[in-house]
């Protein structure tokens, strides 16, 4: 019985499917959009894609804008929604993707905005982290990125006790909670104001476009169109070349 039903559906429309027309509900692509530092630049890009973001800009508290295909959230929640398929596409920082490396999402495009660096910092003067390693054998590291920090210290062959904090990491070395921090720095102003200096750089981060792997297959043409237009926006020359 179910087979007969399937046969009915496999008319010419389905036969030429594959590219444009897919079985199932046709809703517009849904974007997971990060509130915070990447918010404004992201909405500008979505405007350029032809989405109407006026309502999103005007509403601080509303989170779901179903009609335009936008759902707003903390940047660190973006991979969660995209992995589960609750959003087809998402924008978040590379820092978030590195920290949540186990998420099954496709990383499609480096959007270039929101540049910052993942760094190790300590108070200025003689390096207290080096001293702790030399004399105590282990350095205490406060961070909002425990996995990133753990991997970095493992890879560089140093024993570290990772202390996870949820906010204002800069406080940790000033109060004796930790000798060092691993954190994201954009301009370095916050570090300077707290008399911290950068000792190491782990990687550079920018905003990335990510996709749900199943959506990437089932909504291929729509997603490719988004990628192509965003590419053309950022690098007009490269965009022309891609055609």
């Amino acid at each position, binding site marked *: 019985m*179910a087979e007969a*039903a399937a046969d009915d559906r496999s008319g010419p429309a389905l036969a030429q499917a*594959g*590219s444009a027309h897919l*079985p199932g509900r046709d809703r517009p692509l849904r974007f997971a959009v990060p509130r915070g530092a990447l918010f404004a630049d992201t909405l500008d890009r979505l405007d350029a894609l032809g989405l109407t973001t006026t309502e999103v800009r005007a509403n601080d508290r509303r989170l779901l804008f179903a009609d335009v295909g936008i759902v707003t959230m903390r940047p660190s929640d973006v991979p969660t929604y995209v*992995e589960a398929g609750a959003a087809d596409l998402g924008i978040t920082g590379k820092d978030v993707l590195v920290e949540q490396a186990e998420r099954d999402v*496709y*990383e499609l495009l480096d959007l270039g905005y929101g540049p910052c660096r993942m760094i190790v910092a300590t108070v200025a003067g003689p390096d207290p982290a080096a001293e702790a390693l030399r004399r105590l054998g282990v350095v205490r590291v406060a961070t909002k990125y425990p996995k990133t920090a753990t991997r970095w210290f493992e890879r560089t062959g140093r024993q570290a006790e990772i202390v996870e904090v949820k906010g204002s990491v800069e406080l940790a070395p000033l109060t004796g909670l930790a000798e060092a921090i691993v954190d994201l720095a954009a301009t370095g102003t916050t570090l300077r104001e707290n008399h911290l200096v950068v000792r190491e750089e782990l990687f550079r981060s920018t905003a990335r476009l990510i996709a749900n792997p*199943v959506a990437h297959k089932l909504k291929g043409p729509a997603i490719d169109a988004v990628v192509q237009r965003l590419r053309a926006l950022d690098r007009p020359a490269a965009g022309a070349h891609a055609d």
Partner: protein
Amino acid sequence: MSLPTPSGTRDFLPDEMRELRAITEALRGVFERFGYGEVATPALEYEAVLGRADLAGARPAYRVVDDHGDVLVLRSDMTVPIARVVATRYAAAQPPLRFSYVAPAYRKVRPHRGMSRELLQAGIELVGAPGAAGTAEALTVLCHALDATGLRDYRVGLGDASLYPALLSALEVPEAGRRRLLDELVAGDFVGLEREVAALGLGGEEVELLLGVPQARGGPDVLEGPPGPVADAVAGLREVRDALEPAVAARVLFDLGLARDLGYYTGAVFEVYDPALGAPLGGGGRYDDLLGRFGRPLPAVGFAVGVELLHAALTAEERGSGG
């Protein structure tokens, strides 16, 4: 008092079991109708035996030492145990051989929707049926089985595991670079892929191939005119397409970038997608070298469907959510 089950495992109570049973019975009916007899094998196997296969993405995660000091593992899939069965119990049997199973596999996955560490799989293995005809039969059984459960909106992505490696050798990408490119591809990191390709310092046409081929997915037009280096793999996919009945062909989405992370696939690979689920609910492919490692060199193809994932997709379709 807290009496938990191990992380990633859970109990199944009557309402859910009744629905799961209906699904597995529907699948079994189709497997049986196509001549795939059901087999069962021990959940525990010798590590030295299962270790003959290259499992890459699905290495057994649970080990125990038995009373003789031998290391036992909980099987991480059914394909490798069935390869052992074929080599030992059907050592002289005339191929093709057809087997099916509905059995749990054990993997150390991060528990999330439908992904238990004790993962109920339903699938088939078709042994001794080479090339496009064998692959087409497996795809046909897959689609009929999914249809029988009542799943409506699924598609089957079809690619070839040998395609990208063939492209890499054709372009004479150095060995070290190959590994890095394949890692980025399997991880789905196209930004990383672009960076690694740029680092190779190749010409514009080569760069376009290395970045463009894995993004080529869609209808049969994907198989028309892709250039030189991947022509063999693409011709193989075209053969598969031509061997499919129309209702099955209509479900297929060609995907030149499809890379599954099980190490033993040698040719055609496929995955099942449903718009209601964020992850593939099953997949399979050709593993023409695996049986040779067990002493019975025969080409083979098979697939497994995650029964809990299929159940989740069916309920989501019923609710009309997702997608």
